[in-house]
């Protein structure tokens, strides 16, 4: 029997149990990484998902070169994730309710937001307004994509503007914060949702622990930036276990239907 080690409590978990438990450690409830495909499967009604704007791709318009070129990094990320970008967007049903759905993937260049991610979210907003359905985005990201320079910062404004239209048309907007969500995503669409749900133990902050530690030159409290601390500080509405997320979302969707 194949086993996986829990990243938090180091206990061995049988692979089959790990998957049945939705990539959550059965011993310590540590929520591990889950890929967008699996996330979709455990969230949406089976077979209900139609992907939108699959053909939008990033381009290396600045010819950004650090130790590798941005085009190389993009190719590697595509190979690693078999996705075109750090987010998949589309329409799906959750317990029979139509929703516009975005799911980010941290493995694609740290889930960073460049022009393609920004455009996909903007188009998802358009779709949600056109169809008059709620919008749900599963967030995970290190922030803006530095390889697109200033244009990645502008995606924060772009996505916020899209969400503004969604909210002004009285469409419900929910974000689900998954580990980790920080930087330009936290400071744009993730925190302006009508309802913010966080998975247990997810890092959810603006500046990451390393940067904050450097600034204040003191050790940080062990719960820095976690969902639990954010709940205490009034920054999220609730913490929901992965296994209960679908039910929680379904309940909210029913309530907002009136």
């Amino acid at each position, binding site marked *: 029997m194949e086993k996986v080690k829990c990243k938090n409590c180091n206990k061995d978990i049988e692979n089959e149990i790990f998957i049945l438990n939705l990539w959550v450690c059965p011993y310590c409830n540590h929520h591990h990484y889950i890929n967008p495909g699996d996330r979709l499967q455990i969230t949406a009604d089976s077979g209900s998902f139609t992907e939108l704007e699959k*053909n*939008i*791709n*990033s*381009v290396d*318009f*600045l010819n*950004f*070169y*650090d*130790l590798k070129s941005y085009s190389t990094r993009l190719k590697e990320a595509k190979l690693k994730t078999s996705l075109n970008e750090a987010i998949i967007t589309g329409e799906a049903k959750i317990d029979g309710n139509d929703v516009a759905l975005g799911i980010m993937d941290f493995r694609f260049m740290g889930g960073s937001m*460049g*022009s*393609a991610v*920004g*455009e996909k979210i*903007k188009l998802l907003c358009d779709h949600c307004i056109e169809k008059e359905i709620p919008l749900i985005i599963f967030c995970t990201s290190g922030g*803006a994509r*530095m390889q*697109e*320079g*200033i*244009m*990645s*910062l*502008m*995606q*924060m*404004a*772009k996505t*916020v*503007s*899209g*969400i*503004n*239209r969604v909210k002004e048309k009285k469409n419900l907007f929910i974000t689900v914060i998954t580990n980790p969500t920080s*930087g*330009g995503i*936290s*400071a*744009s*669409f*993730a*925190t*302006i949702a009508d309802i913010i749900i966080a998975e247990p133990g997810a890092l959810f*902050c*603006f*500046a990451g622990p390393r*940067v*904050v530690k450097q*600034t*204040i030159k003191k050790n*940080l*409290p062990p719960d*820095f*930036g976690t969902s639990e*601390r954010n709940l205490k*500080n*009034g*920054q999220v509405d609730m913490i929901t276990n992965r296994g209960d997320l679908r039910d929680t979302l379904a309940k909210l969707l029913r309530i907002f239907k009136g």
Partner: protein
Amino acid sequence: MDLKKLEEIPKSYLKEILGSLSKLEKLKKVPFFTGIHFKDAEKDLASKIENYKRVERDAIRVWNIVKLSRHEGRPQCIDYINGIFEDFVKLSGDRLSGEDKSIIAGLGRLNGKSVAVIGHHKGKNIKERIEHNFGMSIPQGYRTSQRVIRLADRFGLPIITFIDTPGAYPALEAEDNGQASAIANSILLMFKVKVPVIAILIGEGGSGGALALAVGNEVAMLENSTYSVISPEGCAAILWKNPSGIKLAARELKMTSRDLLRLRVIDRIIHEPIGGAQNAPKRMIKIVKKYITVSLERLINISGEDLKSKRALKFESMGFFTRE
């Protein structure tokens, strides 16, 4: 190969070049290859070295602009406020949890018309800089700015912002108080207002902390100011994992006014006196005043709805991607 030539290559790329060089030398020594010319390989390497030298020269040029943008002698928010507006009244506090000295917000008059003014203030000497937290804002500051923006929107006052910040303050208290949501809500609010918004980058435009005040119908940059998603120092630490990458990062990030105008992220460059704004602060302030006056004339006759929708359209069209 003349090793002296390599001195002008960025340190980060020296390893790569030296690696290629030694590989080439080794190959030449393999008996099997004697008599074979390595001209092409040598030519390639030489052009690579030339390219890296060009990159280094350009990086130094950009770095000088970064240094200018941070120059202590540049006019700061408070100088522009004193030099441009009459009857300025400073408004303080977010009515929730406090006040932030890195942000100055208030109301004043320009050419007989009332306006709202918001800006980051860094301070001029070390004492002032500490007092104003080096222009790094906390949620209280962004929320104070939101309060003044709402006030301006209600009374139909144009909003003028002066941006000069290394970035939002990365501290525990700021995080606990919702730094991310404070910035996000500032951006959101700037998409809601139906008054003209003019944003001017006067020094450093650092990341989300800058963007929180920069959603303008017109966004202008002083010639030697910068605007970037991350500081060159931060970028180098993450991507180059080495401080020697700082100047290279500054170049790659395309953070100068000319780059940003080319990318159409800003609408205008405001030219500085020769050598930089620090050489003639009074003249600089006059030039900025002229710009605001002319820009307001451009915007004042546009309806509130149009101002709002045009602002949204402008930012929503930003980005480069392909459809394949």
